[in-house]
């Protein structure tokens, strides 16, 4: 059907004036109860979602912590964002030097090659990403897609490790959006991750890792 015909039917009904127009929503509430203590709040809220929050003082600590998590999971390989998008510039090089294999996250355009590449992700144990922001109110992290930022890295592995610069903590989604509305829609995909994959479809019992990661580690640096 043509757009004009479709819209005309809508316009006719709008014309009946069944709903009173209250006008657009004014600027959203910007108050925040906890501006000073974002880190502590984030720790509590993220933990409540089922994520684990870690802290590292410097880059070396951070890298050994990640290597430790990978060893505990008996992982041999990882899928990750490119190093310039993770606030630990040496991370991927050092992990590779330590013997972990890095799976390419760049999906080839050809349809068959694409499928073959993605089927290679099937058992991928670890995904490592940066994070564009952390939200204290909800314990969420924000991940934007782009060059060198495979969406699959935060989605397909059993364990997702996200590295977040503590300077990128914000009070709430509302406040982040008010400051970054263009950032959110300038890329193809912006995802707000709040805890690990979760379902309660079977008798309302909450279980994790049904499709996405079962474990979410957030490393604050």
């Amino acid at each position, binding site marked *: 059907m043509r*757009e004009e015909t*479709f*819209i005309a*039917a*809508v*316009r*006719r*009904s*709008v014309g*009946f004036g*069944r*709903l*009173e*127009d*209250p*006008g*657009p*929503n004014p600027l*959203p*509430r910007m108050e925040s109860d906890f501006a000073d203590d974002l880190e502590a709040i984030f720790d509590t*809220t993220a933990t409540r*979602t089922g994520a684990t929050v870690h802290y590292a003082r410097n880059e070396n600590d951070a890298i050994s912590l990640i290597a430790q998590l990978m060893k505990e999971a008996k992982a041999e390989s990882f899928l990750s964002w490119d190093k310039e998008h993770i606030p630990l510039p040496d991370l991927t090089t050092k992990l590779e030097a330590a013997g972990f294999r890095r799976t390419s*996250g*760049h999906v080839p*355009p050809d349809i068959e090659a694409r499928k073959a590449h*993605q089927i290679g992700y*099937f058992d991928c144990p670890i995904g490592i990403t940066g994070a564009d922001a952390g939200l204290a109110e*909800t314990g*969420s992290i924000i991940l934007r*897609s*782009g060059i060198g930022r*495979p*969406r*699959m890295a935060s*989605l397909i592995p059993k364990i997702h490790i996200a590295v977040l610069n503590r300077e990128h903590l914000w009070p709430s*989604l*509302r406040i982040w*959006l008010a400051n970054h*509305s263009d950032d959110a*829609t*300038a890329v*193809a*995909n*912006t995802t*707000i991750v*709040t805890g*690990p*994959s979760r*379902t*309660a*479809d*079977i*008798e*309302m*019992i909450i*279980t994790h*890792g*049904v*499709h*996405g990661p079962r474990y979410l580690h957030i490393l604050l640096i």
Partner: protein
Amino acid sequence: MSKVGFRDRASAAIKSKEALATAAGAKRFTERRIQAAESFPAMEAARDEAQRIRLHTLANLDRYLEQFAQSATNAGNFVHWATDGEEANKIVLRIAEESESRLVVKSKSMVTEEIELNHTLEEAGIEVVETDLGEFIIQLAGETPSHIIAPVVHKTRKQIGELFAEKIGVDLTEDPEELNAAARFYLRTKFLEADLGISGVNFGVADTGSISLVTNEGNGRLTTTAPRVHIAVMGMERLVPTIRDLGVMLEVLARSATGQALTSYSTVITGPRQPDDADGPDELHIIIVDNGRSNVLGQSTAEILGCIRCGACLNVCPVYRESGGHAYGTTYSGPVGAVLVPSLLGLQDWGDLAQASSLCGACLEACPVRIDLPRMLIELRQRRVAQRLATPGLRRAIKTYAAAATRPTAFRVMMRAGGLAARFRPTTSGWMTSLPAMGKKWTSTRDFPSPETRTFHQRWKKSR
């Protein structure tokens, strides 16, 4: 369409014990929602904003649809328009054929249930796999969902274990963890091999042409990331003006649906994979579906289009809890279904749904966007009565009854005045099988809704 009425379906559901499991699930949902609201002091303010955003969008929907289509096209999407389900299905089929798709993965979507898309695809020989765990179970069982956000709330884990053993050949288990793992394994192969991903849309953002999708399991993200082509099917009323408005909606949706602060994955998609992006779909189609909605927009029940499908009104509804989602006979159950379905599909066949409510007001209290469901239920009943009843006397009497029956005190006064108190005893089922005086003829063929005895507040306290 179903010719048996609500009552028949409800008694079938009650006999099959589906309703029992539903009631337990609904109660837990409500507990979680109330907890979430209590831990979020700004909830009431957020609800006011959410209501305002929805009403403003609907009152200017023509304008926002044009803006959305323009921005979505600029962002590299293909936008399609479908007047009804048949047209939408045809568009999907054409895209599936053009992309030579054999295997389709779907993330949970009410609108594609509404238009029975799976049926169309399967008839064309295309394999369709539902990937939301609950929807997957429903598909294996060959059933229909019974709750907006928990499609298998009516099933026990024992039944699900037996179903998995039979249909996907895993060892018999009742353990939800093991059942999860089995589904993950089975569905993961499908995701990675699929040619086409089909999703619904929770919200469309008019000024940027973005679509937002929320899932807890991550199946929504996989559906819209792994396959080369993504089709998003959107009911035309899903829009919000800006991305900041979207933030408000996400805030109230998760808290009202599952009691979470935010859904595990809230995604904003603005176009297909960009040049040199690591991954994502190469093609993105958005199909905007009317299917009766523009008609509803011109009715006195237009407000129902503001619904964000959170399921809260189902969970608190005493009738839904007693009878289960299948009693409503279509995709949309509970109070929202009781208003939306007769508005979309007509009172002739579906008017009895408007009777499936005790008008206790709990739904309005629970609704995050403050949709006045009781008002619309009464209006639909009145419209139905006006269409059906020949005698003006009875028509007038029922109007008075409808006004009074929702207010216990007024009702008692009216009944006492008429000396009818004894005859108009409210029944536990919420329906009266015999009416005195001129109402006799009515109840010889149908039951009459019983008056509310407790005040809304008493009932609401009890239901939480």
